[in-house]
Each structure stands twice: as C-alpha cells, then as structure tokens.
C-alpha cells in the first residue's frame, strides 16, 4: 500500500524534504513508517496526524492515508516567558 507523508516547519527542514509517497506492507503502523522513512528524526519531539486527526505510533495505516509530521505547535502568540 502507499501512504502520503508530509512534513512541516522545523521537521521539514531537518528531514530535508517536504512530502513523499511511501510504499509499506499491509497493516503497517505509524511507527513502521517513521522507522522506514525518517529514522533521522528519532531524537526529535513531534506529533503525527493521519488524515488530519492526531494519531499514535501504533495507529494502523491504510492505503491512501495522508500522514503529517507536526512539530510542537507554536502558532497563536509568543510564549509568556522564554
């Protein structure tokens, strides 16, 4: 099966690509995808959305899913202290 992987902001910068289509065995999980395609992000904190909903490492993927890698959110306003 194929899933669409997209990355944002600092993760995009660190991974060196913005999006990719990744072929995976049936019943692969988010964790399987991360280990296969972005092992270099292992030390970073980030979240994953599958089809625009937050997911976990053990979420099972399906053909055609859109998987987004999301750095911790920094929208809204500037933090109250640094």
């Amino acid at each position, binding site marked *: 099966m194929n899933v669409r992987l997209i990355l*944002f902001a600092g993760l995009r910068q660190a991974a060196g690509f913005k999006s990719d289509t990744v072929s995976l065995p049936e019943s692969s999980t988010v964790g399987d995808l991360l280990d296969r395609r972005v092992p270099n992000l*292992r030390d970073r*904190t980030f979240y*994953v959305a599958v089809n625009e909903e*937050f997911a976990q490492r053990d979420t099972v993927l399906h053909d055609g899913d859109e998987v*987004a890698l999301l*750095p911790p959110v920094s929208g809204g*306003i500037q933090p109250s202290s640094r």
Partner: protein
Amino acid sequence: MSAKLFELTEQPLSQDDILRRVSRFDCGGVVTFAGTVRGATATGNGARQTDFLVYEAYVPMAEKMMARIGAEIQDRWPLVKGVSILHRIGRCEIEEPTVLIAVATPHRDDGCFEACRYAIERLKEIVPIWKQENWSDGEVWVEGPRQPELDVSTPNQPPT
C-alpha cells in the same frame, strides 16, 4: 454573513471584520483577543529584536482544529452564541495581528471573557501552525511546549 468562522489567511487580519463575523441580533458582548508581533522581547540579558515572523500551517487540519475549539467552547459555555478564530500564514510584520479570536454572548457575564481565553490556550496546544522568527542575523522555527499525550517520539526521546 457567509464569511468563514475558522480561517487561515495570507491577508491582513481585521478586528472589525471578525466582529462582523460573530455579531448577532441577540448578543450584547463580544471579547476579541489579538496576538500581535512583538518587536522586542525581554530576555535574561537584555532585549532581543525581531525583524518579522513567518507562519506556516497544515491548513486543512488547522481549520478543522479551530472549529473543534469552537465546539469545545459551546460545550463548556452554552450561552456562547458565536466564535470565530482567524490566523495569519505567511510573513507578518511588527505590531501586525497574527491571530484574532472573537467570542459573542448575550451579556458580558455569559462566558465571553473565559471562552476567549480558553481558545487562545487551546490554539497553542492543538492547532498545527508554526512560527519562524527572523532576526537580522538568522531565523529559527519556534517549537512550542511538548504535549506528552500527542508525542510519538521513539523511546529514545530524552525526557522534557
């Protein structure tokens, strides 16, 4: 009024525009929060100057999460009649608003202040938007505080 209530946009934000989006015949109080670009930030060793910001978003998910915040507000403050959240993407200059949140209620004690505050806190937790700070000598993508329940990092992840 057909304007969207939850919207990412490259256009400048207007407080008059968001007031029109939430104004209703039966509402007498509207609280609007504006997050604006600070040009100087006090730090441990003096002020740091920001030149400008660039915002990037996962647009369809961000609009969906903003609508979810609106639904959460309706659950928690049932007297709220209108909620709108608008956020900039792209380049934002000093003093420009980057986010506007407006909440309308029949009376000022019906939760408009509390719900508006709730919305900005939630926005910083679950809405996928990121800020790049640009100074005279470089730029960096800012990452917010880690939400442990969302983190999918491997077990190698250092504790925070």
